[in-house]
C-alpha cells in the first residue's frame, strides 16, 4: 500500500488551495481596510432602516428591544454574548460610554443562555439601556452580523449609519464613532 503511485496533479493541489486562500484573505483585507472609512462599509444594510425587531428581555431586566426603541434618538446597538472573549476586551470602553452618558447603548445578547448573560453582566458591569435576547440568531441574521462583538450606529430615524466589526478600540471611538454621533445629532 505504500509507494502509492501518486498522480502528478496531486502535487499541485496544495498550491491551488493556498492560491484560493490568499484570494479570500486579500478580498477580506480590502473590505476591512474599507471599513476604516464609514462611507465604504461593506454592509448592504448601511443607510437602510433597522430590521424589524421584537426581542424579549433578559429575565427580570425590564423591557426587551423593539424597532420603535431605535427611532427615538441616535443610539448604538451592540451584539455580544457571555461566551465571547473579544466582548470582554471591549467591555471597559462600553462601561465608559455608559458612564459618560454619551449615547443610548442597547445590547443584543446573541446565542446566549439568559442566565449566563445576566451573570456576565453582574460580574463585569451592565452598560446597556435595553437588552434583547437573540437565542436563535434571528436579529443577528437580520443585521448581517459576522461575529461578536459588532456594533451598529443608528440615527434618530432608525436608519443604520455605521457598523463597527470587532471590539471598539479607544482610537476607533475617538476618531470615528464619537464624531459621527456628534454629526448625526446636528
Amino acid at each position, binding site marked *: *500500500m*505504500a*509507494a502509492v503511485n*501518486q498522480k*502528478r496533479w496531486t*502535487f*499541485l493541489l*496544495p*498550491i491551488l488551495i*493556498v*492560491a484560493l*486562500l*490568499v*484570494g*479570500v*484573505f*486579500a*478580498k*477580506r*483585507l480590502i473590505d*476591512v*481596510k474599507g471599513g*476604516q472609512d464609514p462611507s465604504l462599509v461593506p454592509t448592504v444594510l448601511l443607510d437602510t432602516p433597522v430590521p424589524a425587531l421584537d426581542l424579549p428581555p433578559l429575565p427580570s431586566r425590564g423591557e426587551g428591544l423593539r424597532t420603535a426603541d431605535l427611532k427615538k434618538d441616535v443610539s448604538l446597538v451592540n451584539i455580544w454574548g457571555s*461566551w465571547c*472573549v*473579544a466582548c*470582554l*476586551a471591549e467591555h*471597559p470602553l462600553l462601561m465608559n460610554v455608559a458612564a459618560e452618558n454619551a449615547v443610548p447603548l442597547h445590547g443584543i445578547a446573541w*446565542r446566549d443562555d439568559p442566565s449566563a448573560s445576566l*451573570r456576565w453582566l*453582574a*460580574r*463585569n*458591569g451592565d452598560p446597556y439601556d435595553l437588552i434583547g435576547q437573540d437565542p436563535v440568531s434571528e436579529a443577528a*441574521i437580520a443585521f*448581517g*452580523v*459576522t*461575529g*461578536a*462583538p459588532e456594533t451598529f450606529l443608528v440615527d434618530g430615524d432608525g436608519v443604520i449609519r455605521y457598523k463597527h*466589526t*470587532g*471590539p471598539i*478600540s479607544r482610537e476607533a471611538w475617538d476618531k470615528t464613532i464619537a464624531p459621527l454621533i456628534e454629526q448625526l445629532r446636528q
Partner: protein
Amino acid sequence: MTPEFGHFALALALPVALVQSCIPLIGAQRRDAALMAVAGPAAMAQMLLIGLAFATLTQAFITSDFSVVNVFQNSHTAKPLLYKISGVWGNHEGSLLLWVFILAVFGATVAAFGNNLPDRLKARALSVQGMIGVGFLAFILFTSNPFLRLDPVPVQGEGLNPLLQDPGLAFHPPMLYLGYVGFSMAFSFAVAALLEGRVDAAWARWVRPWTLAAWSFLTVGIGLGSWWAYYELGWGGWWFWDPVENASFIPWLTGTALLHSAIVVEKREALKSWTILLAIITFSLSLLGTFLVRSGILTSVHAFASDPTRGVFILALLAITVGGSLTLYAIRAPKLEQGGLFAPISREGGLLINNLFLATAAATVLLGTLYPLIAEAFELGKLSVGAPYFNTVFIPLMVPLAILMGIGPMLTWKRGDLRGILSRVKAALAAVALVFGVALLLSGFSVTDVAGAAGMGLAAWLAVATLTEWSGRVRLFKAPIDESWRRATSLRRASYGMTMAHIGMAVLIAGVSGSSAWKQENILTMVPGDSVTVAGFDITLNGADVIRGANYESLQGNFTATRGGNAVTLTPERRVYDQPVQQTTEAAIHTTFWADLYVVLGDGPDESGRYVVRAYFEPFVPFLWYGILMMGFGGLISLSDRKHRVGAPRTSDTVAAAAGA
C-alpha cells in the same frame, strides 16, 4: 545605547540577511565552497545585529525611555520590572523583533553546530533561513519600526494592557515564537532538500531535532496561554476555540504529524514527499497564525494590535513564502524516489494513520476558523462558527487517534503482528474496564457522567498501553530483575521521551474529560459571615478590603475554605489598574493534587453589603498542566538523545564534502 543605535543595527541586519540568502545559494548551485562558506558568518552577524537591536529596545523599556513611541505606548514607570521587560514583546513591533531575533538565533545555531551537515544542504538551508529573515526585517523596518522617536518627550507612558501584566502571559509569546520559528528550520531544510532534489534518512535525522525542539516549545507555549485564560479571565474555562488560540493549535497538530512522519523517513525512507509537504505546511500555518493575529481579519480578543495595512504586507510575505515553496514542491516532489514497501498493519502504517488523523484534525480546525471568511467571500451568507462545531468534529477524530496511540508503538516495522499485540493489551483493557466502572460508580449515570467516565477510560488505556510497551522493551517480569534494570538503563532517551510524552497525552485526556464532565459551578450573593458548600468545601466569606498594589487598586476578598478539618485562605481580587484604567479579576485558586477550588469575587458590595461570588469546583484541571508539562518535557528528553546531537552518521556525500573542504 541610544535607540538609534538599535535602529541602525536592525537596518544593517537587512543587507546581511540579503547576502545570506543569495550568496550561499549561488555557491551551492556552482559547488563553490568559498561562496557557500559565506552562510555561516552571515548567520552569526545577523544574530549579533538583531540581538543588539533587541537589547537596545529592552533597555529603553527598562529605563522607561518615553522618547520612544513604542515605550510610551506600552509602558509605565510604575510597572513591575518583569512587565517592563515583557512589555518589549507585549506589542506588535516588539514582538516582531523578538520573532526575527529567535529566527536569527536558530540560524546561527545551525551555522555554529551544524558541522556534520553536508555543505550544500547547510548552505541552502541557511540561505532559505536568510530569505525569511529578509522578509521579516523588511516588514519591521518599513511598517513596524519599534525605534520611532517622539517629540516632545512625555513624562509618563500609557501603560500595558493589564490583562497582559501576568506571569503566564509574560512567557507565553516567547515560548510560542520558539515553537513557530523553530518550525522555520524544518521548512528551510525541506526547501533545501527540494532544491537538492534528494531526501534521505540522514536528512530526516537532521530535521527531527529542530522539529522536536519547536514542538516542545509550542506545546508549552500553548499550555501557558491556556493556563492564563483559565486563571485570568475568571470563567474557569481553559480553551475557547478562539481564532487566535486555533492559530497556534493548527501548526501544533501538523507539527505533531511532522514529528512522526519524519521517523518513517528516517527509519524506512518512505513518506518522503508527504514529510516535505508537512514541513512546508507547518511553518506556513505558523505564518498564517502571525497574519491572522495582526491583520485584524478575524475577530478575537487578541485583535487589539491589528492594522490592515500591515496585513497586506504579511499577506504578501505569506503568499511569496508559501506560494514559492509549494511551487517548488509541485515541481520537485514527484521526482523524489519512493521508499520501502510496508503492510497496512505495521509501524509505518500506524504512523501513516496517525498522520491522517492529525492532518484531518488540523484541516477541520482550520476550516472552522476560516469558514466565516470563506463563506463571506463567496457570498454564502454571514455566519460564525463556535465551540459546538469544534467539539463535534474534533473529539471524534481524537478518540480513535488516542486508541491507536496505545498500540502504535508496539507495532514492528514493515509488518506488524496484530494478534500478538492484542494479547499484550489485556492489562490496558482491564484498566479501561476498571477506571470506567469506578468513575461511573463515583459520579453517576447521566450522559455527561458516562462521557466523562469514557474519557477517563481512554486515558487509562493510553497510559497502561504505553507502560506495557515500555515494560516489553525492558522485559519487565519476563526476565530477571537485574536484566530488566540493565535494559531500562540502556534504553535510548528518545524512547523514554516518547513514553513520557504519550503518558502526558493520557494525563491531558484525563484532564480534558474530567474537567468537562464534572465541573461544579455555584453563583450566589454573600455578605461577610455567609457560608456555602461546594464539592465538600465549606467556603466562608470573612470580608473584603481595599488594598493598593504597585500600579493598581484592588478589592481583595478574604475567604476561608474548610474540608475535613483543613482550612485554607482564599483571596480573590478585583483590580482596577491606574494606566490604562481597566478592571481585571484575579481568581483565587486552591489546588489539591487532582482538583482546583476556584473562587472569584464579583460585583459588590451593594447597599446591604452583599457581594456576588462565583465558586467553581474544577476537577482534573491540574491534570491538563501536568499532561502538557510531561509532553513538553518528553520532547526535551528525546532531544537530549545522543543521536540527535552527534549520531547523524555521515553519508558518502558528507564524507566527500569533508574531504573536499
